[in-house]
Each structure stands twice: as C-alpha cells, then as structure tokens.
C-alpha cells in the first residue's frame, strides 16, 4: 500500500504585524484606520460591539442603581440585584446566572484610582467637600452605624461618596456608549455602515454628539435631594468622563487582581501609575491561569449576548466553542482600537487637513503621543484575519 499523501499542516502560530510608532503616526495623521479594512473585520467589530452594547446596558443600569439606591450602604450585599429581591432573582444570582457586574466595578475603581481629567479634579475640590459634608450630616442623623463610623474615620464616608460619584458618572457614560454600539449594529444591518472607516466615523460622530452632554448626580436622603455632581460643576461627557475612562480602562488598567502582590513584590510594577500598561488594549487574550482576571469576566458576559453571525464564525474556528472567550477578547481588542481610533480622531487639536504648519506640528505631536503608547499595545490583532 502506498503512503497516503498528507495535506500540509496549518501553522500553529500567527504573528500579527507590530507597526512602529512612526507607522502609527502616519496612519493617524492620514486619517486611515488603525484596524485593517476587510469585510471580516467589519462584521466582527460590529457584532462584538453589539454584544458589548448589551452588556454595557446592564452595567450602566446597575451602576446607576448602585450609586442612587445603595448610596452609603456599608454592606451592599444585594447591590447586583437592581432592586429586584424576588427569590427567583436571588436564586439565579446564587447560581451565577447573571452578568459579572464585578467587571463594571473594576472599571470604576480603575477610574477612581488613576484619577485623571475633570471629574477627578472636581472630586478634590472645596465645592465637592462641602457637598459631602452636607450629605454626611444628613445621612448620619438617621443612621447610627454611619454616625458612629464618621467620627472614628472622618475620611471614610467622603471616600465612599467619591466612589459613588465615579460609579454614577461611569453609568452615564456607558449608557451613551451602549446606545451608540447598538445603533452601530443597526446601521450596519441597514447598510449605512459598510467599512471599518465608516465604523470609526460612526463612533466618532456619536462621541462628538454627546461630547457636551452634562454629567450630573444627585441623591435623595430622607426626602431631601442633595447634589453630588451638580450642574454648576460643568462636568461634560467627553473630556471629564470619556477621556479619563479611556486612560484608566483602555490604556492604564490595573495590575491583574490575584497576581498584583507577587508582581509588586518582584518590582515588576512601576510605582508611577502613568506608566501602567495593563488596560484593555494591552491585555493578553490568552489567560495564564491567574485567578480573578477581570477582562475574562467581560468576555464571559459578552458571550451571553453574542450575535449569531459572530458566534457561528467562532464555532467554525479550529477549537470551536473551546476558546471562544479568547476569540471574543481578540475581536474586542480590534473593536477597542476602532473606538480609540475614533476618540483620537475626534480630539485632534486641529483639523487634519489644516495647511498651517503650527497646527500640523501640534497634530503630529498629539498623534506621536498616542502612537508611543499604542505601538506596544496589542497591535498584532490589527491585521489578524482570524
């Protein structure tokens, strides 16, 4: 019997392109998209953003619920139930048949901890301190536990209110983004969006449209309404929440939970938070068995809402459903590069077609600052057809 000829084996590894900082600067200044243009990329990005939109909807509702209804609750045991305390809901919660709201909290804590932008500046202001004092005075009048805690730890309740303010602001931000991503999917189905460039433009226009939307937050205590983030603070969607969010969650992130102590002890973590590169754009899609890695929680949530078209694409892959969370993460990173692309395009200091040399130089410096950070991110996904 003759040997059966074998078909060539597919490669076991894929090495995506790693564009240099200069390449990225030219791409950004030319108005080209970071993600390679292809029909596969279009469907992947749109579908993953649709599932992300569904998840953000749940996150947004919960964060706003937590900030308003679980305000200054030192033991918020039922904070993930959105006020529905029915046995069925609690049972599903206990069986973990639910969205991982912990990821939303993780993002909120990252924003609070990195503290960049106008929101953080306001949280450190005298006006905010005065608001806090009024709220604490009212709250401790009827709450003996908080009344006992406050004199012992005078910074404690103030910090809880800062956290609640970030939580509410993030909830408002995700409300807008959720609607934007669901609208994007609808636009793609309608044929209004048919390329990666159109996706970036769609997101940029959505961000620009919401840029000036006010970010406010008030709580009701014993029948009285108190402002935490009042309108007069002048906080707006884009510069005070969206940009700090991108900085904290897309770029910096926090060292993965569970491994932070080991890495810190090994001096592997920079003491300068601005040097952090643990955000979504840097995350390794391959989990390495560390416990409690938050991006994997998001992938689990997105898997629950995956559009059928993308699900079928994943199932056709070499591992089928076996590595679906890795695939979601890789597609998600492609989508996040599109969102970052849109954010950069929408925040250039001057129009890209400007002929004024000083404006061109300013744009180049702005692009170079972004490129320096992005060139060490997971840019390998940008030309990955898989």
């Amino acid at each position, binding site marked *: 019997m003759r040997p059966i000829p074998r078909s060539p084996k597919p490669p076991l*590894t894929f090495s*995506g392109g790693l564009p240099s900082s200069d390449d990225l600067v030219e791409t950004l200044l030319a108005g080209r998209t970071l993600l390679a243009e292809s029909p596969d990329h279009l469907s992947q990005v749109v579908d993953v953003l649709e599932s992300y939109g569904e998840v953000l909807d749940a996150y947004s509702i919960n964060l706003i619920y937590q900030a308003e209804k679980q305000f200054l609750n030192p033991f918020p045991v039922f904070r993930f139930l959105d006020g529905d305390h029915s046995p069925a809901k609690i049972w599903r919660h206990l069986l973990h048949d639910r969205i991982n709201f912990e990821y939303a909290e993780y993002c909120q804590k990252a924003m609070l901890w990195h503290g960049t932008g106008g929101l953080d500046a306001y949280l450190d202001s005298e006006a905010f301190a005065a608001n806090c004092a009024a709220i604490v005075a009212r709250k401790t009048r009827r709450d003996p536990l908080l009344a006992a805690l406050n004199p012992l730890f005078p910074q404690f309740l103030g910090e809880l209110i800062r956290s609640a303010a970030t939580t509410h602001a993030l909830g408002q931000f995700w409300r807008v983004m959720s609607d934007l991503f669901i609208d994007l999917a609808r636009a793609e189905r309608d044929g209004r969006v048919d390329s990666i460039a159109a996706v970036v433009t769609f997101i940029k226009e959505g961000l620009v449209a919401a840029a000036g939307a006010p970010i406010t937050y008030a709580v009701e205590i014993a029948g009285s309404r108190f402002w935490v983030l009042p309108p007069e603070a002048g906080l707006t969607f884009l510069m005070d929440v969206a940009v700090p969010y991108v900085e904290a969650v897309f770029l910096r992130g926090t060292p993965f939970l569970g491994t932070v102590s080991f890495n810190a002890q090994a001096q592997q973590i920079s003491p300068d938070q601005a040097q952090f590169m643990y955000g979504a754009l840097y995350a*390794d899609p391959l989990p390495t*068995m560390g416990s409690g890695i938050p991006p994997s929680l998001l992938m689990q949530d997105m898997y629950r809402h995956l559009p059928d078209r993308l699900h079928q694409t994943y199932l056709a892959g070499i591992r089928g459903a076996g*590595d679906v969370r890795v695939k979601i993460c890789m597609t998600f990173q492609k989508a996040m590069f599109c969102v970052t692309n849109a954010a950069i395009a929408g925040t250039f200091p001057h129009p890209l077609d400007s002929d004024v040399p000083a404006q061109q130089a300013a744009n180049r410096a702005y692009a170079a600052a972004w490129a320096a950070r992005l060139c060490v991110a*997971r840019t390998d996904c940008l030309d*990955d057809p898989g």
Partner: protein
Amino acid sequence: MLSALLLIPFAGALGLLCWPGELATERIRRAALGLLVLQLLWSLRVLLVFDVSDPGLQLQESFAWVDSIGLDYRLGVDGLAMPLVLVNAALTLVSAICTRDLSQRPRLYFALLLGISGAVNGAFLSENLLLFFLFYELELIPLWLLISIWGGANRGYAATKFLIFTAISGVLILGAFLGLALVTGQADFGINPVTTAQLGMGTQLVLLGALLIGFAIKIPLVPFHTWLPDAHTEASTPVSVLLAGVLLKLGTYGLLRFCLGLFPEAWALLAPWLAGWAAVSVLYGSLAAIAQRDMKRMVAYSSVGHMGYILLAAAAATPVSLLGAVFQMVSHGLISALLFLLVGVVYRKTRTRDLEVLRGLLNPERGLPFTGTLMILGVMASAGMPGMAGFISEFLVFRGSLAAFPLATLLCMVGSGLTAVYFLLLVNRAFFGRLAVTPPSGDPVADSRLEVRLPAVALRETLPALALASGVVGLGVLPWGLGKLSEQATTAMAQLPALVAAIQGGGLLS
C-alpha cells in the same frame, strides 16, 4: 485455557496478514481492537479462575513438542505472571486504540502488535526455559520492525541499536539456559532451583552472571541502557507505550523468575552488589533525566531509574520487597504508558517535545489543559505521591529492602526525590507560563504577541490516558487486590529453601 491467550493474538495476527483482498485501515484497526478486547476478556477470565491462595503455578497445560531438545510446550500462571498478563492485555489494547493516522502498511502494523502481545503472553506463561526463550526472541523482530518502519527520522539507527542490544541479551540468556542444561545434565529445561549440591558456586555465578547481563540489557539497567532512550525517542507513541509498559517487564520478570528462581544461593551471594547496582542505576537514570530537554527522553530515562527499584527489591528478596517488585512492575507499566501517551498527545498537537520551546500548555482555552492535568497526575504518581500506584510500590520496595540494604535503599529514595525534581522541571517548563510552542525569538514583545492555534484534543484521544490514570489512582487507593493476587507467589519465592539457607548462612546480609 492459557493457550487461548496465545492463540487469540497469534491467530489474529496470522488472519490479518493472510486475509484476502484489500482491507481499509479502519477495518483492520477495528479487527485488531476486537481481538485485543477478546484477549483482555480472556485474561480477566483466567483471573477469575485463578486461586490466589495457591503460591504455585496453576492452570497448567503441557505437551511434548520437540522432545529431543527438551523443548516442551508447558504453560502455567502464578501470582507473578498473572498481573503481567493483565498489564500486557490492557496496554496492547491501549496501544492499538491510540494508533491513529497510520500512513502505511496498517495490516502489517497491527499483525506485529498482536504478535508482540502473544509472544509476551507466551514468555510470561512459559514453564520451560527454551519455550520462554523462544517467546522472548519472538517479540524482538516485530518490535524492531515497528520502530524501523513507523518510527521517527532517526529510526534506522535506533532500531538497529535496539536489535543489537537485545540480540546480545538473547544470546546471553540462551547461553545460560543451555549451559545450565549442560552442567546439570538435565535437559528438560524446567524452572527448578539449582543448589550447591548440584552445581558449584563458581559455575552458578557464571550462569547467573550471563542471565543477569541478559536481563539487565532488557530491563535496562545502567550501563546497558543506552538503547532505550534512542528507541523511545524514535518509536511512535503506541510502540513506546508497549515498550515501556510491557516489554521492559520481560527483563524484570526474568530477573525474578530465572535469576532469583534458578540460582537462589548465588543470588544471595551477589545480592549486596546487586543492591549497589540498583542504587547506581536509579541515581544515574534520575540524574540523566534531569539533563534532558526532550520530554520523551526524560520519561525514558525515568524508566531506567525506576527499573532500578525492582533490582533493589529482588536483591533484598524479602516477602515485602518482592511484593513491592510486582507492584512496581505493574505501576511502572501503567504510569510510564500514561506518560508516553501524554507526551505523544503533546507532540501530535504541538509538533515538538522540546522543553526549551514548550510553555504554558495548561492554558485553559488554547492549550492542552486536560492533557496537562493528566500529566501532572502521572508525574505525581511516578514521584511516589500517596494515593497513587507509585507510592504503594515504592513504599513496599523501600520498606522491604531497608533492613537488608540500608545504604542502597536510602540512595534509591534519593532517586525517588530526584523523580520529583525532573518531573517538576518538565511540568513547570512545558505546562506553566504563557502558552508557546515555538522557540523564543529574542524579542519579548513579539513573543508575548504571538498567537498560538493548537488543535483541541478530542475526547477519544484522551480516553486511553484517562483509563490508565484511573488505573494508577485505583491501584494507589485500593492496592489490596493486586497484593492478594501476588502475595502468595512472592512470599513463596522469598522462602525458597535454598535462598533461606543462604540467608541463614549469612550470605545475604554479609
């Protein structure tokens, strides 16, 4: 009844070879699997009728074959052979199950596999020295063919080396058997202990020496081991499973049955040297395993080390140590087969076994997590972790040998500790960290961006390993079954009158 254990595989092999017309590979494979299942069932049937309270040979069958040269067809089974017959049946079946993607000569391949299994059964069941030799040699050519046809790139070298070594082993064994017949004048080739009343000690030592070296090549013991790592490296996974799990046991079986069984007095005299040899073999095998970067060679050297325990136990020749030797034969058969199976899975999926290349295979989504889990279980068992087969066998060997040879036993215990060292190196390098199946490029950023797309391990590919892992844990948790099966035979062996006399004479402990 015992003849069926020879008839099934031999007739099957012949049937496969002579079947007229073309046969599809899958059909041949199924036929071989059917025959091997039948062989396993028949082995279990023999087990059912086996009387565990009888230390002697049972279910004997005999008829004169070539009377003029003393070659009689005499079969029998005792507590030493019974477990090995079962291991042979089980592991040949596993080998056939895990044979996939056979690109050439499937008919010959499965016929050879069946032929080896039948020959091994014959060797374990023979009551006649010449018959044993016949079967011992019968498995040689099929195995040589299995390596040289279906082996790796350097298969010619490895197969020839195996053939030369094992042929010398056969010559020495045959020489010893013929020499024994010549000097004793008894040409019936029965397995009867020789005493100094019949034969001078010098002659006994010469004959025992030839047998020892013959079986030491097969086991293999240092310094006769060099064929084994090469043979394993070039052999395909199913052949490695058979080689480590079954064929090496022919050597250890011969050590107990013929070296100890035929020359108990000379054995007792040599025992302290043999214990020292065991310690050297264990330590050399373990240290050599540490230095390996090929996973398969590491497992092969671990076999060299672990076979040394059996020599130590045989040297001590106490009831406990001999029972430990039987346990070690069975547990090593299961554990090494498991490890070779898993290394085979890793190689099939990653196309490498290089420990300088492989990383992070336990990755839950893109790696080989279940294979890695079984590998961790296998290496734990091999290192003698309680709850698994390796612990029972090593404990019995050490417990039974400590009083007789404390230094050699302690050195072997160090070898057991070294097993944990090299297998933890294996697991740490290949299974932990970020997933990688290619050599580092020198650019850490590029390496950390490299996407790995390994094919998944199907359940059917894992089932044989899962079955073996269950056996390893089962034997570790419930060792009494095997203990009961072999205890009478090994106790009787330790109480051979000549051996007891030699021990009482101070030969053993001097």
